[in-house]
């Protein structure tokens, strides 16, 4: 765990150093490129605002109605056996369909349990190691007109489950 927090602390500064150092060595105008890239970044970040508003509001409604809590409580009876905290179940499911909705659930968990609690931490890790499975699959396969996806779904599901299991295990170690 010490090694991991070491990596966490150093990764961003070292990568920044490496990228800028490499850019200078290759005689690039780093600042000009950075500003151009950052502009694009602002654009992509703000572009998701409408979806984020829509889906975060929906999550917020679901939470305020008391449904999420009741649902998690019922599920807890089953998921307790496999060590998955019931509060994380909605996140795990929604994550497969929509990134924005998952962000809504993630921030809801942050607000309720705190970012550095076991739940907040595990939820962060689940967000890191999984992708929007169904969205990615349909985007890529539909692009080339594929209708039979053969072993994509079982393989991707397996890797998502492995990621969730690893997140739970790592989350407990903190």
């Amino acid at each position: 765990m010490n090694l991991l927090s070491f990596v966490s602390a150093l990764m961003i500064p070292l990568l920044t150093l490496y990228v800028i150092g490499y850019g200078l060595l290759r005689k690039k105008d780093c600042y000009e490129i950075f500003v151009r890239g950052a502009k694009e970044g602002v654009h992509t970040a703000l572009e998701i605002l409408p979806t984020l508003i829509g889906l975060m509001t929906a999550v917020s409604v679901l939470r305020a109605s008391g449904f999420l809590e009741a649902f998690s409580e019922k599920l807890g009876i089953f998921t307790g056996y496999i060590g998955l905290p019931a509060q994380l179940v909605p996140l795990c499911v929604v994550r497969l369909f929509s990134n924005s909705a998952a962000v809504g659930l993630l921030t809801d968990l942050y607000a309720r349990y705190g970012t550095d609690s076991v739940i907040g931490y595990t939820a962060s890790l689940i967000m890191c190691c999984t992708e929007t499975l169904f969205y990615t699959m349909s985007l890529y396969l539909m692009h080339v007109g594929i209708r039979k996806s053969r072993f994509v779904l079982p393989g991707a599901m397996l890797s998502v489950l492995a990621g969730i299991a690893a997140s739970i295990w790592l989350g407990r170690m903190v």
Partner: protein
Amino acid sequence: MLNFLWAGMLLLGIVYAAFNGTLPEVTEGCLNGAKEAVELCLSVAGVVAFWNGLMTIAKESGLVSLAARRVRPFLVWLMPGLKGQDEALDAISVNMAANVLGLGWAATPAGLKAMEKLEKIEEERRRDQAQMLPTEQRNLRRTWHGKAMPEGVANNEMCTFLILNISSLQLIPVNVIAYRSQYGSVDPAAVVGPGIVATAVSTGVAVVFCKMMNRRKASGKK
């Protein structure tokens, strides 16, 4: 799909609230959710923009293509059928390098291009196979990719590429770090190290699964 997810969440929430007597809270939740989304989006935009700027430097100075060249031998090991298929390998490796560095906007176009190239390869296989004698066609079972897939069916390479893509390859989860910082984490970047381990586990399982599926097909069992 999102249509049902979004509408479903809202309708379910409102109907449940009506029975549960929490409709006033739902009104408040509606307002708060929308407000929170804007705040979150704005505060995350800074970090995302910085990262994107930095990674644009990496891309234009040739670091991304350097990383892409490094993953190529691994890709050939994973998908031996692509040996010598430079166009497809290039697109796949750029997609992966961009995913690792968190450059979503560069990853998706390369990924879609990779799918096109893979479809073209399968078309060539179909054409070659149509010109073969029956005995030669039987021998195809012993090659890595087996018989050509009919139109509209994903080949082994597509499956492997997609599974790997969905298993997530990101090295630094910039967005999650930004969300954590917005919600008051004492150490937002603490997820980087464990995040790499969790990603390695999901990707490792994906690699093993793909290798097994590909082997089963090549030996002609199914």
